[in-house]
């Protein structure tokens, strides 16, 4: 399959089911699929996996700020030179996402990272220990949130 075939097959899969999505092409080699209903994320991923469209290259979490009060999560499925991006929104308060680990075992590290960096509850994630942050990291402090101000680093020569 060439890039165009990959993207049009993905588009076909996403559109042929009764899923609530918005599909667009932000770049020539990228298909953006906005998943409007959170519960449809897993079936769509299954649909892509069945056709072996792309591997999960990364999951990117975005904090859209306190005005929008939303997180946007991007799932990058890459194959050859093309990318299929599933875009999901979740409110910042009580944020929760379904886990993809049952379908894609390698999603675990990305989901653990989302959990500790953004405070998003990943439903179905088995390993919930910190991956990057220290054990004594305070509860409820999520460093990648826009309003989390981390303490300034000590300047050289200054007493800590």
């Amino acid at each position, binding site marked *: 399959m060439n890039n165009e075939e990959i993207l049009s097959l993905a588009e076909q899969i996403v559109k042929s089911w009764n899923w609530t999505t918005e599909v667009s092409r932000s770049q020539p080699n990228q298909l953006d699929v906005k998943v409007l209903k959170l519960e449809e994320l897993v079936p769509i991923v299954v649909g892509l996996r069945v056709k072996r469209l792309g591997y999960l290259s990364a999951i990117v979490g975005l904090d859209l700020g306190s005005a929008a009060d939303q997180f946007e999560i991007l799932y990058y499925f890459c194959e050859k030179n093309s990318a299929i991006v599933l875009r999901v929104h979740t409110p910042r308060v009580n944020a929760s996402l379904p886990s993809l680990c049952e379908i894609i075992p*390698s999603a675990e590290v*990305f989901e653990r990272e989302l959990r500790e960096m953004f405070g998003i509850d990943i439903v179905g994630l088995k390993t919930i220990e910190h991956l990057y942050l220290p054990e004594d990291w305070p509860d409820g402090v999520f460093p990648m949130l826009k309003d989390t101000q981390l303490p300034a680093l000590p300047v050289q020569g200054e007493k800590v």
Partner: protein
Amino acid sequence: METTVTSKSFTVPIGPQHPALKEPGHFQFTVDGEVVTQAYVRLGYAHRGIEKAAESRNWVQDLYLLERVCGICSHIHAFAYCLAVEQLAHVEAPPRAEAIRVLVAELERIHSHFLWMGVSAHEAGFDTLFMYSWRDREKVMDILEGLTGNRVNYSANLLGGVKFDIDATQAKAIREGLDFLEERAGHYLQVLSKDAMFLQRTRGIGVMTRTEAEVLGAVGPTARASFVPRDMRLTAPYSAYRQFPVQMVLDDRGDLEARFEVRVHELFESIRLIREILNNLPSGELSVRLPRRIPAGEAMVRLEAPRGEVFYYIKSNGTDKPERLKVRTPTICNLNSVIRLAVGHQLADVPMILAGIDPCFSCNDRMVTLTDAHNEGERLMTWPQLRQHGIDFYKQVGK
């Protein structure tokens, strides 16, 4: 008659400090006798919050910050960042700059693979190979220093191009260095594929099938040693790789031996590519100007670092600072796969399996705790002792 066998298992924590490699990580292995039954990984000892820090620095400052993500493959991070920012600004670096970027990236690959060869040989107890390969690595470090002024963190990139040109004297020095490195790589290939003692530590160890590699998300040479045709330079060509294509090195055996051979064959391929670039270096400018404020938008790039695919996502909000920057390095993908591979293997194979993926955060330990459940006591081992355990274990097997 019914017999019940009760057994308890030991937990072996490995990590986070290691005197041989650069960065720390913690592993915990549950062993039943000598066999690993469970494996667990804990990272973050080197987590410096670079993604967060990047949001409070401007586009130019971030270039220097991101080059410090990794001490070994520093160039590829700056390269990826520059490509993503240039994509956002709708600017392309001049062809000569792109060729020089790729040339430095390939020199970096040679340096990284030589470094890895030494470290893995050391873990196997083959210190002669360790010393020789690190001596030879000095040659490529010298080339990089002659070219950029730095042995590591070469700082070759600018937003919109590169900082230096290559003149005839430098090209001559590179060619001479490559002749030497090519001869040495040939020698190591002989050693790695013929030495019976070494093959005992690599052949059939840590086998990952193609399906496993795909499902567990392996990338780079680790994936290619399991016949997964995934090399960003070829599958998603970027920068000057479009004009100077590489050959993909694949192996279908999936064991440690395959991972060694894939990397050594990649050395030859890198050497060939550098020569080709030197012979056909495009003429022209070295850089173009980029605005201080980068237009709003999103960019994603995937590059082939020495260890595999590196993923950069950058979102700009139109100011002089990025809104969000995400880095996904290859080690996190490979670690995830290798940690599952360790299950079912001898404890003695663990150092080699870990070293086999060329972990960039790098493992292991001053202090290994062996919890003896039967005697309810604890035995402390250092990483060198565990390494020695591996070597002694195989000496026993060899008798």
